[in-house]
């Protein structure tokens, strides 16, 4: 398979139904010149979705976003979009992209069902269990300036976690260190699958833009 890199200016959307969408918009606007982004668009309608090359689904409450998307007639267009277009889900966005989620509200919740992983909502507990951790991140090497450390300051807020990988093509990008010796493997908190990126954490709450650069590079390879 040859990968053709598309270098034309991109329109990148951020789903703006609820949650921390403006944080992503601010980071993308900071990167607009260096990464050749022509427009950053807050997406609330089908028309806006139609005008973008790649999408970020932000953190927030996944149940809320799913319900608003449904009532705004956006669920089906979103399902179509994420089938082929580069999309990154952070936290709630990861839950929405996944094909299976546990610990959901009674009656379950709508998912876009395109990322073949099983996600456990609020895996780490309630807000008092939210945490930050700095970890080496070899996947960011390509966007880390030479000579700099590749560790990244991760922020987890009532975070979900990937508890099952349901397709061998899913790549694990970041795995947390084990919390006890009894554990064989730490929790998976970032995965890549074809044109999709899913992360439990919130790079948009840090000053470090490398995960956004990583996604933009990924988007260019998959348009």
């Amino acid at each position, binding site marked *: 398979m040859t990968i053709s890199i598309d270098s034309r200016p991109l329109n990148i959307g951020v789903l703006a139904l609820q949650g921390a969408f403006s944080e992503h918009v601010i980071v993308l606007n900071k990167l607009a010149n260096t990464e050749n982004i022509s427009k950053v668009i807050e997406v609330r309608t089908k028309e806006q979705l139609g005008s973008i090359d790649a999408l970020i689904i932000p953190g927030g409450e996944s149940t*809320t976003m799913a319900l608003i998307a449904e009532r705004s007639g956006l669920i089906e267009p979103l399902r179509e979009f994420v089938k082929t277009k580069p999309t990154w889900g952070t936290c709630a966005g990861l839950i929405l992209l996944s094909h299976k989620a546990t610990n959901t509200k009674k009656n379950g919740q709508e998912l876009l069902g395109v990322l073949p992983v099983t996600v456990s909502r609020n895996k780490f507990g309630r807000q008092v269990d939210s945490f*930050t951790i700095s970890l080496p991140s070899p996947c960011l090497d390509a966007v880390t300036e030479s000579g700099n450390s590749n560790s990244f300051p991760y922020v987890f807020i009532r975070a979900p976690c990937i508890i099952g990988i349901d397709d061998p093509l899913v790549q694990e990008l970041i795995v947390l260190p084990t919390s006890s010796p009894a554990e064989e493997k730490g929790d998976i908190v970032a995965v890549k699958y074809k044109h999709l990126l899913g992360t439990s954490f919130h790079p948009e709450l840090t000053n470090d833009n490398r995960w956004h650069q990583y996604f933009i590079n990924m988007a260019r390879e998959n348009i």
Partner: protein
Amino acid sequence: MSQFQAPQNLTSQAAVSADSQAQADSFKVKAGLAQMLKGGVIMDVVNVEQARIAEEAGACAVMALERVPADIRKDGGVARMSDPRMIKEICEAVTIPVMAKVRIGHFVEAQIIEAIGTDYIDESEVLTPADDEHHINKHDFKVPFVCGARNLGEALRRVAEGAAMIRTKGEAGTGDVVQAVRHNRTIESQIRRATTMTNQELFTYAKELGAPYELLKETAKLGRLPVVNFAAGGVATPADAAMMMQLGCDGVFVGSGIFKSGDPAKRARAIVQAVTHFNDAKVLAEVSEDLGVPMVGINCDSLQDKERLENRGW
């Protein structure tokens, strides 16, 4: 939050670096949850059934309390923290974050609410204050706090005490949005003034506002409050909610407005849609249709000074 760092070895206190980094990380996580709530509606609920209705309507969080402000107003007497069992039941019934109220200054109520795993604490003027001079030192807690404010000085004093989220006080339990509008406009206009000032002027303005200088300087630099700011107190309709969003709020609390109305589920859904599409008058018109009877409400002008909850807080 403060950028002030005392010179090394001025006193025998340990160097600040490790501690202040830990505090900064902890604050990032506290303020971060508020960032996740933005563009959302937080609804007052008094039992599991209401909490489920709120979640199904698309609330981004619920505030668990025994009586909504309209009833607290009607019943009189001392209003305290809710029964922990009732809060725990609500925590188990929904997957969205659960908040609970404690009295101003009542740090033990806060310890109790933290111990049962609530996601956010509202140190609220809606309950009867437990301390008439001090607020809770919110840095002492792992659980984040939201506090009410009528002006920039009050907001920044609360942030200095450790609040990770601010809301307007408005006038809870009235269904009259006028005070929330006034409080938000006051904060916004004071921020706009601060952004035009020199550092020298900011020192004097900090004194006038009763605001910590470092936080005022940060606010002036950012051009907004340094934490998430929600509207609260008197929001009763989708139009009220959208107006508060257009005035620059990051999201909306709705207290008595939903479950004191004729068709709570429908009104709750409508307010959620209104907060997402706050700039789209067509959507606002659609969702405002046929909502049934709104809460009756009390005109704020008819309240005696001692009946005004907004005056609580120091």
